[in-house]
């Protein structure tokens, strides 16, 4: 005996209308003989018999049927009478459910009793579902075995899981990003939302990554600079200013920018133009309790070493106290990141502060052997790295720019003038 079901005879149809039986109940039919005409939104089709035998019709003409509904049995008369009516009644259910839905009546009692009844059947029932549907159920924290499948052979489909989630008031929004390890290490993983600052950093870094960049590295002999800083330190302290290398480096950079203005610019990728800036606002990367911030020394070309030192100190305090304003962190034209101040490292490859053309990494000054003529002396070595937008400038420009910065840092006359 074979079941004759209404199957998906189009491409993705879910229901149809049993237009007409072409045979009568109890008729003898042949294999492949047309039994019924069913109308779908695509076509009117004939439903053939899978085998030869006697037919037992289970539903009436002129009735809606869903894919998977049992229409008839075909087989030996003895088999048919044995397996007849009860199943037929059961299988009528979808149609009545359909009517209930159409009439706007939710089948409350059925639904309420369903999860329990199904749950008890869980142990025996093998769930049919694709891996992606199982994953969805896991993500929504739904036991897939209690979801009623509407697919072929009761397969649980994505829609079944989603509609179950909706009904049980489940948040059906799927996380957009997930890791395989999360399933393996449930309970050993914590999800931490990004702070506003980290979100801003993440966004800026993503933008920065869009810049086709290259890096250049060199070392400066900061021995003269170091003694200059030592010399001026005391004077400054009286004015309540703690002097570091940084204001001198800022000055050296500004002078180098004047020589090589393409580094004091940004790139307009939409128009394919360089936006050349004729003001010198130097950004300084600063580590705040909640993450990286860039404070900006505006018009650094017009400020003295002591003014810059004072401003660096004030803005630094504001960052640490989290009282810094947005205005004090924007509109930089070139940025310096002082990796040395963090207390370690030799050389790094900094990320450009988008949309600027370049960033200078300033590293820890260390005492190192320096060859002067035939002599090896102890010198204070300042490693520098420059990451630059290769659309705007080339490696040769980077070398020239960096050489200029080094020249100023190493030039006693320049430093004398500043001091």
């Amino acid at each position, binding site marked *: 005996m074979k079941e004759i079901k209404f*199957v998906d005879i189009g491409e993705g149809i879910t229901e149809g209308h049993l237009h007409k039986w072409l045979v009568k109940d109890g008729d003898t039919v042949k294999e*492949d003989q047309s039994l019924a005409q069913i109308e779908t939104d*695509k076509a009117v*089709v004939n*439903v053939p018999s899978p085998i030869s035998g006697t037919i037992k019709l289970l539903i009436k003409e002129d009735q809606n049927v869903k894919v998977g509904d049992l229409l008839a049995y075909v087989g030996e008369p003895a088999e048919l009478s044995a397996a007849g009516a009860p199943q037929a009644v059961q299988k009528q259910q979808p149609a009545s459910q359909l009517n209930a839905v159409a009439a706007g009546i939710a089948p409350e009692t059925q639904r309420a009793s369903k999860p329990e009844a199904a749950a008890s059947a869980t142990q025996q029932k093998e769930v049919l579902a694709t891996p992606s549907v199982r994953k969805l159920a896991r993500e929504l924290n739904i036991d897939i075995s209690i979801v009623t499948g509407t697919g072929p052979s009761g397969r649980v489909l994505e829609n079944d899981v989603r509609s179950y989630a909706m009904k049980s008031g489940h948040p059906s929004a799927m996380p957009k990003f997930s890791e395989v390890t999360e*399933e*393996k290490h449930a309970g050993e993983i914590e999800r931490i939302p990004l702070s506003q600052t980290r979100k801003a950093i993440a966004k800026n870094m993503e933008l920065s990554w869009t810049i086709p960049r290259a890096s250049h590295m060199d070392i400066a002999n900061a021995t003269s600079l170091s003694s200059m800083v030592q010399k001026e330190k005391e004077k400054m302290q009286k004015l309540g200013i703690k002097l570091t290398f940084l204001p001198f480096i800022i000055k050296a950079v500004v002078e180098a920018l004047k020589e090589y203005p393409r580094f004091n610019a940004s790139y307009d990728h939409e128009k394919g133009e360089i936006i050349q800036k004729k003001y010198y606002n130097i950004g300084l990367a600063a580590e705040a309790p909640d993450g990286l911030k860039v404070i900006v020394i505006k018009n650094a070309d017009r400020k003295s070493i002591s003014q810059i030192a004072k401003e660096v100190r004030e803005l630094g305090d504001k960052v640490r106290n989290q009282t810094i304003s947005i205005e004090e962190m924007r509109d930089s034209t070139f940025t310096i990141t002082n990796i040395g101040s963090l207390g370690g490292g030799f050389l790094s490859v900094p990320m450009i502060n988008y949309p600027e053309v370049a960033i200078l990494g300033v590293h820890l000054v260390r005492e190192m052997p320096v060859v002067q003529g035939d002599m090896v002396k102890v010198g204070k070595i300042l490693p520098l790295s420059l990451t630059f937008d290769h659309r705007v400038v080339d490696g040769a420009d980077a070398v020239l720019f960096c050489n200029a910065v080094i020249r100023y840092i190493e030039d006693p006359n320049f430093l004398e003038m500043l001091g």
Partner: protein
Amino acid sequence: MVLTRAYDNKILSLQRQGRTATFAPGFGEEAAQVGSASAMRPNDIFVPAFRQSGVYLTRGFPMDLYLLYWIGYEEGNVVPENVRGMPMAVPVSTQMPHAAGIAYAQKYKGSDSAVVAYVGDGGTSEGDFAEALNLAGVWKAPLVAIIQNNQWAISMPRKKQSAAETLAQKAFAAGINGVQVDGNDVVAVYKATREAISNARDGPTLIECVTYRMGMHTTSDDPTKYRSDEETAAWAKKDPILRVKAYLEGKGLLSDAIDKEIEEGNSKIIDSWVEKAESFKPDPTSMFTNVYSFMPEILSAELEESKASDFWQG
């Protein structure tokens, strides 16, 4: 021809029982298919679209595999080594540039093989079709392009398909031979194809087989919605199988008894194909092995689970 029709009928019935996915039967186009495929020499290569059961059958493609494809297993679209042909191409006319290329390759290699490619009337409006004929013409590639002009491109009638009086004349623009033949006359199709293959060394031929799609475009289509019963009835009289039977009966080569014998024999052959296709046990491994460069633990667990599951065996 009767076997291919019987098989198409069987697959249609299986589809209506949910035992195959969408299917494109070739009712009415048996002469165009079997006639042309019979004219091919053993070393010639066929390049099908997707309504060529008669070609597959004639060229010795294992027909249980053919059904397997319609059941939904891509394994059914793998052409065995001993069959000289290409897999089905469902996107319209995309097989034509392939065919031109394969034909040129034969010439380049110094092989004597010709390529016989199939396309529908709708396919002749595609750029691919024009490009393929043009290149084949320039290269003088051994290509025989067969248009199964069955008058309907799904619901688009032939008269709206092209303002050209014939589809065969599309050959003129490409500077190649064009032939229009009664596509419901198996002998005529055979003769035209045979000639085209013997001339293939000198360049391509386009053969328009004027025939009629007696059935639906595919099982998802209902032609009664867009064409008249009169039209269908008129073409039913020109059914290529009726015609070849009448011819053979006239020659005293066919009787009702022989016909019945053939029918019963075919039925047994078809049952064996269906049985073989339906007993196919897919191997789920490839679903998992081609996703990552390595096998993540979760996939390896799922692979084991799917291998252990009786789902694949059922």
